């Protein structure tokens, strides 16, 4: 019944454009939405549907050292309000990526986060070194480290499930990035560690990553799931299990970002930026992830149904904030943690 009232949040006349800019360390973004790794291929495929240069950033499919065929098919299964995928990191390898894909993104004026993956810490380090060595004219603004991929040395257990392995990968990446920075005199590329929700203690893994030199966190990657084919009664995916994504996992993403932000506020984690991902399909969804602490948001699975989604979500987010009289995105990052600062309405006489 009562209308919304806002306390303590900087007000703007409703018509004023909202300041949606954000940053991840030295990487400044005019808008807070990105594509999600593996949900936009190399990025160029989306150009017919949105302005790549207007996105916060394009996050590439995870790049490996060598070309990779990926897995057999079927690679996907639809699930209630979500899907499973089991692609197996198909890609052309770093050489081809740098030669063919990155120039197209540069040409389009996109800011780029390159996601990297590897079978051991050395491969991660090598890839990071290649990216960090790119010239200042390169569109690469940050590296995202996909630690949710199998560790060859440890029975294929994913790095992200083990604090030691996660730390080793981040150590390798951050030292490669630092050496390149030292060599060139340019600031070091920000390094985002992308976390898996499939762990008992997310904060411990995040801490291992920041201890290893991650300057930011991306949360979350997919959660492990499985579907049985109704005809064969065998796993529907050729890869047996797959990653669950889409709105079905949004409550898990919101919870994970909440936990990480709470740990930062408690001093248990350093105060690094968090990029949110998981089930975002609208501006209202993005606002949930931002309210619990994300300073930018990736749009993954929603892109499959609506290839313009990463751009649309930013527009809708702007409208959500304008409607609430919020002048700057930064004012609502983490607001869910602040009793009394939130946007409240009285519920009783």
């Amino acid at each position: 019944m009562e209308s919304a009232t806002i306390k303590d949040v900087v007000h703007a006349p409703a018509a004023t454009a909202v300041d949606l800019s954000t940053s991840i360390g030295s990487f400044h973004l005019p808008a807070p939405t990105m594509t999600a790794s593996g949900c936009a291929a190399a990025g160029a495929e989306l150009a017919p549907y949105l302005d790549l240069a207007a996105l916060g950033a394009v996050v590439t499919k995870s790049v490996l050292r060598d070309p990779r065929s990926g897995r057999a098919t079927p690679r996907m299964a639809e699930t209630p309000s979500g899907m499973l995928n089991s692609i197996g990191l198909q890609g052309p390898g770093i050489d081809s990526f740098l030669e063919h894909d990155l120039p197209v993104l540069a040409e389009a004026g996109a800011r780029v986060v390159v996601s990297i993956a590897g079978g051991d810490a050395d491969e991660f380090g090598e890839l990071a070194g290649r990216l960090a060595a790119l010239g200042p004219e390169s569109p690469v603004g940050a590296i995202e480290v996909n630690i949710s991929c199998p560790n060859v040395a440890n029975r294929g257990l994913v790095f992200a499930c083990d604090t030691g392995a996660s730390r080793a990968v981040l150590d390798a990446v951050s030292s490669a990035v630092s050496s390149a920075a030292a060599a060139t005199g340019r600031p070091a590329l920000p390094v985002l560690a992308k976390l898996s929700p499939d762990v008992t203690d997310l904060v411990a893994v995040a801490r291992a990553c920041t201890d290893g030199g991650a300057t930011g966190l991306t949360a979350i990657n997919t959660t492990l799931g499985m579907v049985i084919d109704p005809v064969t009664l065998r796993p529907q995916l050729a890869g047996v299990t797959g990653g669950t994504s889409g709105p079905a996992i949004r409550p898990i993403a919101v919870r994970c970002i909440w936990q990480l932000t709470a740990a930062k506020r408690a001093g248990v984690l350093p105060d690094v930026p968090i990029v949110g991902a998981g089930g975002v399909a609208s501006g209202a969804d993005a606002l949930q992830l931002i309210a619990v602490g994300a300073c930018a948001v990736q749009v993954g699975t929603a892109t499959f149904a609506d290839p313009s989604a990463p751009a649309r979500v930013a527009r809708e987010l702007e409208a959500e904030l304008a409607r609430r009289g919020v002048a700057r995105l930064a004012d609502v990052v983490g607001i869910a943690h602040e009793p009394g600062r939130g946007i409240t309405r009285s519920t009783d006489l």
Partner: protein
Amino acid sequence: MSRTTTAPAGVQEAAEVVSARPVGAYTHLVLHAPEAARRAQPGQFVACGVGDSGMLLRRSLSLHAADPVAGTLEVVVAAAGPGTRLLAAKRPGDVVPTTAPLGRPFPIPEAGTPGVVIGGGYGAAPLPWLARVLTAQGSRVVGIVGAASADRLLGTSAVDDATALDGIADALVVTTDDGSLGAPGRVTDALPEVLLELADLGDPWVYACGPMPMLRSVHTTTREVLGQGARTWLAVEESMACGVGVCMTCVLPVAQDDDDGVRRTRMLRACTAGPVFDGDALRWDAIGAAPHLRGGALVPDDAVGAPTAMGGH
């Protein structure tokens, strides 16, 4: 192969359903999507949202026709699973979110090259439009449509005039597995005779749409009957999450000559490199090779970046 590797991009439109009518076991939908209608060519498809439901992903449907003047796309939907069931139940006035036209169209041969267009079940949907393009440039075109039984047939006036090849193709053969309409048997039973007849006019181009086992059989039969003296263009139906080339779910193993002249197999996206593939390029040894994966395809050992025996992925 000389064809470009990326498909022309589609456009997103909120398409109103103009009409919906049953055609045999299927539903024929007319959608108002004017920009897509302007661009579309035969062999391309439209990705359709199923509406407010727990099903996020779009469903891919071959374009049966596109009318740039009326601004409409036509499709024929088989209610196969929960999503296509919702699409087949759409009523005029409902709005379907669409991205179209997607994929690479059927390649068109030199004028006069004879053609065979073959459809299994609703796979016949794009054939009348294709046949019209071919005959318009002077090709003799024979149609073959088949299905398990009469009610699953499409493309013959015995089922529905508006979606039929009769009067467009120069001749039409109809088959059903159970003999309930046309000749008893499969589309490939009728193919050898058609190929031999057309071969007198030149090396025929064979176009086929339908389930993968049928496509394989069309390719094998064509090669058996005419050796290398024919080309096959097969429109595959891989399970697709996005339809626009960003998810990598729709791949299948395809062998192509690289710039260095070496033939290499890669897992190519059916939505952007296809859905129409040269039958000779498909790695039939790997497609459908594992029964428990149903239509799935394995990665051939010799594919670029294939998993190695030692670890790998």
